[in-house]
């Protein structure tokens, strides 16, 4: 483990950003989001969840896929892909770090999404351990240890020391480029870090959502959960916006649309939300006719369908963004609670 005084993080960031594009939590407009590092940036390492999740870097809200030219009856395809810039994201919390596993399951499974893969290979994730979890946090429910996140490099702030530990070859390579700013951690530092982890885990256990029971969810319960009458009650407040899906680090549904620029056609991919009425709309009708079905789809996907296809892995990481941001305060925690009863014995 390496260490650095918290007052010297500016040097670390400057070194890192010299090596590759560096993104980190920066405050602006009253919110903290991952933004590109500048010496003037108001870096906030104390803020837990950024307003937008880390998925922005791997699945951007919109991206051009391909362009077309039409001349008479002829069509030509223009593949003009920008090469991926190497980058690092600093300050990724444990929940977001785990969300990348979920995304990998989708985009790196056959056939591989080459856009995603390119960014994944070019991005180094520097996660940051939590020490003051919020009441909306429930990553522990999904077996995530917020005190010890995953990532290429794991950083933590203990008192006024920033601890740094490379965990993967990519992380070690990056550490090599900035090793001069660090000094090796002493046994005391290690002990202090361990002590902090213990305290954090203790707080995690006391959080209001820590008691959510997830073991009654998963693929075995598909039809029982799907047919539960409780959905009919839960969805009533849902206004059908896409806030929960867009702030979610694991919501990966997308749409592909064409934009006619007047001298060609750009085909782009953009985030989409299963909460929208046009999500499944076809020329001959819509299989999900009301908000009830759309609302149910989102939670069934995260808690039942995804585990069914991915060895039991849930596609929720308990970051709590939807809990904090839903306009009507309906969220996955309430859904888990309301349907937690095992329906088939």
């Amino acid at each position: 483990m390496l260490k650095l005084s918290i007052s010297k993080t500016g040097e670390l960031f400057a070194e890192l950003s010299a090596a590759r594009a560096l993104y980190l939590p920066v405050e602006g407009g009253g919110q903290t989001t991952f933004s590109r590092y500048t010496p003037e940036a108001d870096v906030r390492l104390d803020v837990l969840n950024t307003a937008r999740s880390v998925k922005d870097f791997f699945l951007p809200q919109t991206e051009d896929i391909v362009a077309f030219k039409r001349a008479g009856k002829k069509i030509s395809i223009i593949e003009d892909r920008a090469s991926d810039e190497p980058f690092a994201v600093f300050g990724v919390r444990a929940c977001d770090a785990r969300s990348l596993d979920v995304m990998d399951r989708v985009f790196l499974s056959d056939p591989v999404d080459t856009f995603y893969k390119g960014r994944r290979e070019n991005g180094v994730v520097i996660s940051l351990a939590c020490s003051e979890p919020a009441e909306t946090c429930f990553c522990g429910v999904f077996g995530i240890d917020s005190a010890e996140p995953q990532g290429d490099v794991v950083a933590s702030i203990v008192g006024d020391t920033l601890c740094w530990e490379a965990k993967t070859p990519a992380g070690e390579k990056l550490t090599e480029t900035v090793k001069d700013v660090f000094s090796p951690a002493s046994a005391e530092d290690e002990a202090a870090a361990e002590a902090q982890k213990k305290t954090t885990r203790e707080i995690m256990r006391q959080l209001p959502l820590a008691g959510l029971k997830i073991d009654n969810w998963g693929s075995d319960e598909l039809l029982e959960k799907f047919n539960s009458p409780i959905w009919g009650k839960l969805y009533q407040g849902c206004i059908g916006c896409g806030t929960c899906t867009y702030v979610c680090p694991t919501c990966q549904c997308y749409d592909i649309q064409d934009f006619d620029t007047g001298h060609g056609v750009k085909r782009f991919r953009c985030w989409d939300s299963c909460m929208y009425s046009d999500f499944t709309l076809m020329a001959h009708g819509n299989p999900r006719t009301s908000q009830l079905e759309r609302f149910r789809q989102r939670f069934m996907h995260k808690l039942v369908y995804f585990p069914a296809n991915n060895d039991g892995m849930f596609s929720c990481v308990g970051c709590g963004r939807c809990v904090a941001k839903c306009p009507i305060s309906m969220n996955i925690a309430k859904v888990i609670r309301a349907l937690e009863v095992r329906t088939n014995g």
Partner: protein
Amino acid sequence: MPIDEKGTFRPKIVAFCCNWCSYAGADLAGSSRLNYPADIKIIRVPCSCRVNPLFMLRAFQRGADGVIMCGCHPGDCHYTSGNYFARRRMTLLFGMLDYLGIEKGRTRVEWVSAAEGQKFAGTMNQFAETVKSLGECRRIEDLRCKESVG
């Protein structure tokens, strides 16, 4: 950015013209051999009231540097009151564009009757000058429509 052979900027302008008056006014301007810039593209609408604020914005998206709407003089609407409604709408829209920091000289409303070929040409010349002095529209543009490829 479209530039003529002398190297001066030639703005793209979209003019929404009411079928019953301004469009005929434009016609008259043409048949009277009055000059106005060829960069003004006229879109004929059944009434100035047909012009949705979206049309204005879409014109800017497609690369217009200025958008003007022409209709019958208040009181002369073919449908009695269409232009009165259009007037309120456009006033509010222009106020909003100004509020967002978009140059107000890029939008305009002018009442031109079928007999006012002279006024039509004059208005267009004047508007083109204003837009020309403002330069290329950068504050409400869609870069995708301005790129040369794709």
